[in-house]
């Protein structure tokens, strides 16, 4: 087991380091094979780890931080939660690496790209497998850095570099709260080991646990783009599309959910903290779904749908349903990676056109992409019998079963969000693939709208996993779910005891909602009405559409609340304090000494008589002093 876990961690690191240091010396094909090979190797190692898994295990590799009684060794912890995460991460990452090889064929700077991608996988795996919080924080910051570097990958355009910085700075707010939580927990429990901490939940007052829970929630908000720290994710779409698929949909943004699920036994005694988590998740899910309704950019639509789906996972964690949240996390990783990769095919085929109102008729031109995208969309919308349907429904059911006014309200909000999700998903599909007006898309005979077959083939396994993802955790009226059985030893999560009729009823509601969304989208965007929407969309957006398009104008709000005052303060400190007070006072002191030096210097005018008088005066003063002494 130690061998497998070491390989899982070290292979991506090895690939990243080799590519970063000497990747330029190899032929292109070698670099690409190395980058993909290490990730596939890590996937195989994690499959072996899964095969040999029998009970939670802790593996100590080397000592890392040790001072007095503070111990943070590099030790890995494999339990059901991290096990399913590493299998999912290595698989999705491996598929996306393979896809990237085809997507980035025309990119000159492929070595930097693949090195960063490998380092990202390494950091993510460290985050997931870490046994103590400092190590987890190392991975946490590692993915943050790689994300920053990859969002700004095409940094020669100002817009992309700004998006990278924005992501880095906004997530830093959450990281600070997380850092405070780690230090506080060490001060309280004298330990940073996750397994130790998770047994300590009941030893301190509920108020303290609530505060720690809220701090962890703020950390998760930053990384998982939850309200109010969600503004960075839509802008993060400036990076290459496989990066969006890998980091900003499938793996990194779920780190916040993973953190909360990981620390769940610690924070579960505090119902306030759980309610805050659930409320954050529910509000974010609704917010992002409304924003996605009005987006024009294909990738931004998907970004908002990611925020919304992670909101669902947070809602699940807040309701205490770790299994359901992880279930949705896994299925979401598959279908969201699929949707982004398919969007990458569309974008590559239309020569970097991202406005969905300028697309159309791609159904015939890109059949494999279309069917894969449709499968991903069906999962996202939660059409019955897809993976997304079962996972989203299990979260909603957990929220419903939790009872109480707050959770009932959140359930209704979740159902409304599911309806909106279905509407915007099919709006996107109708606009991108429906119709037949391909003239707008520079698809003359000179540039055929074709994409590399590797890219399309990579979609197929993800589509199958997304569609049949429901089998991971089948509803209890059909038997025992694989994930539920695997997660049974995890402490803290509440297992749902529910009657089969209620479960069936809930699933019927969810199915009807999803189909209703499809019907509404068809009514608005299907057939000839699509053309009307296109003409309507040609003009500038007004009113509520523009409100949603710009994400409820949160960027403007933050500009008003934080950026403007900060800039005003900075310019005040710069011009008034630094230049006005500090520099000016130093200048004045220097000028005083300069002038007095000049004054004394004029004494030495070379006239012997002055010297003699000064000498005599000095001697007289000395004598006078001596006389005064005696």
């Amino acid at each position, binding site marked *: 087991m130690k061998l497998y876990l070491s390989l899982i961690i070290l292979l991506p690191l090895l690939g990243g380091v080799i590519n970063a240091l000497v990747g330029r010396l190899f032929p292109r094909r070698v670099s690409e094979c190395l980058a993909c090979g290490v990730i596939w190797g890590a996937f195989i190692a994690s499959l072996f780890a899964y095969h040999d898994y029998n009970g939670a295990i802790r593996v100590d590799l080397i000592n890392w931080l040790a001072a007095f009684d503070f111990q943070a060794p590099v030790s890995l912890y494999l339990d059901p939660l991290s096990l399913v995460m590493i299998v999912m991460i290595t698989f999705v990452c491996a598929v996306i690496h393979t896809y990237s090889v085809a997507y980035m064929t025309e990119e000159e700077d492929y070595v930097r790209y693949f090195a960063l991608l490998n380092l990202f996988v390494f950091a993510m795996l460290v985050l997931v497998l870490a046994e103590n919080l400092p190590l987890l924080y190392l991975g946490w910051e590692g993915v943050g850095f790689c994300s920053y570097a990859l969002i700004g990958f095409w940094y020669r355009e100002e817009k992309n570099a700004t998006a990278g910085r924005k992501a880095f700075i906004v997530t830093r707010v959450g990281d600070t709260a997380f850092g405070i939580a780690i230090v506080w927990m060490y001060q309280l429990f004298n330990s940073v080991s996750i397994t130790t901490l998770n047994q300590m939940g009941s030893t301190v007052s509920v108020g303290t646990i609530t505060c720690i829970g809220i701090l962890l929630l703020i950390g998760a908000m930053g990384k998982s783009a939850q309200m109010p720290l969600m503004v960075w994710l839509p802008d993060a779409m400036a990076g290459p599309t496989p990066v969006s698929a890998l980091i900003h949909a499938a793996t990194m943004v779920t780190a916040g959910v993973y953190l909360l699920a990981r620390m769940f036994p610690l924070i579960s005694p505090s119902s306030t903290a759980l309610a805050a988590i659930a409320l954050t998740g529910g509000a974010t899910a609704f917010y992002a779904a409304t924003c996605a309704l009005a987006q024009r950019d294909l990738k931004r639509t998907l970004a908002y749908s990611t925020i919304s789906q992670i909101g669902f996972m947070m809602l699940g964690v807040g309701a205490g349903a770790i299994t359901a949240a992880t279930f949705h996390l896994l299925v979401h990783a598959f279908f969201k990676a699929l949707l982004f990769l398919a969007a990458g095919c569309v974008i590559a085929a239309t020569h970097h056109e991202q406005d969905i109102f300028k697309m159309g008729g791609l159904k015939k031109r890109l059949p494999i992409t279309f069917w894969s995208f449709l499968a991903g969309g069906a999962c996202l919308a939660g059409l019955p019998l897809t993976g997304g349907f079962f996972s989203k429904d299990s979260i909603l059911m957990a929220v419903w079963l939790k009872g109480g006014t707050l959770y009932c309200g959140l359930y209704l909000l979740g159902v409304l969000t599911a309806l909106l999700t279905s509407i915007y998903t099919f709006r996107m599909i109708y606009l991108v693939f429906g119709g037949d007006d391909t003239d707008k898309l520079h698809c003359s005979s000179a540039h055929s709208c074709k994409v590399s077959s590797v890219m399309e083939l990579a979609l197929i396994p993800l589509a199958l996993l997304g569609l049949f993802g429901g089998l991971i955790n089948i509803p209890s009226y059909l038997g025992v779910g694989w994930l539920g059985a695997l997660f049974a030893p995890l402490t803290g999560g509440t297992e749902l005891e529910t009657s089969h009729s209620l479960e069936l009823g809930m699933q019927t509601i969810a199915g009807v909602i999803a189909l209703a969304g499809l019907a509404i989208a068809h009514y608005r965007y299907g057939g000839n009405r699509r053309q009307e929407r296109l003409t309507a969309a040609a003009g500038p957006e007004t009113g509520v559409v523009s409100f949603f398009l710009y994400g409820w104008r949160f960027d403007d709000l933050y500009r008003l609340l934080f950026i403007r005052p900060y800039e005003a303060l900075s310019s005040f400190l710069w011009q008034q304090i630094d230049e006005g007070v500090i520099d000016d006072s130093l200048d004045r002191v220097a000028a005083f000494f300069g002038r007095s030096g000049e004054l004394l210097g004029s004494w030495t*005018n*070379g006239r012997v008589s002055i010297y*003699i*008088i000064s000498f*005599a005066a000095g001697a007289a003063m000395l004598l006078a002093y001596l006389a005064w002494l005696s």
Partner: protein
Amino acid sequence: MIVPLTHVLLLAGIIFIMGLACVVAWRSNLIMMLIGIEIMLNAAMLAFVGGGAHWGLVDGQIFSLIIMALTSAEVSLALSMVVYLHRRRKTVNANDFSELKG
């Protein structure tokens, strides 16, 4: 000794101040400045001799002999320099020699 030490020292002080005043006031002529210096040295010698007589020690007289020798050497050197300077600049005004000013 008939003359008390205080009187001797007072006389020496007065002569010293007169010599100093000569050096300070008569700076338009280097030779007069040298004379002022001689007067100051003589005042010092007078103080030494008075001290030696008062305490009955020979040191004061030895010191005044040394000062005499030193003064003759100094005067010969200084006068030769004054002559040299006068040859170069046709003046003996001390204020005209200010090349060493900082």
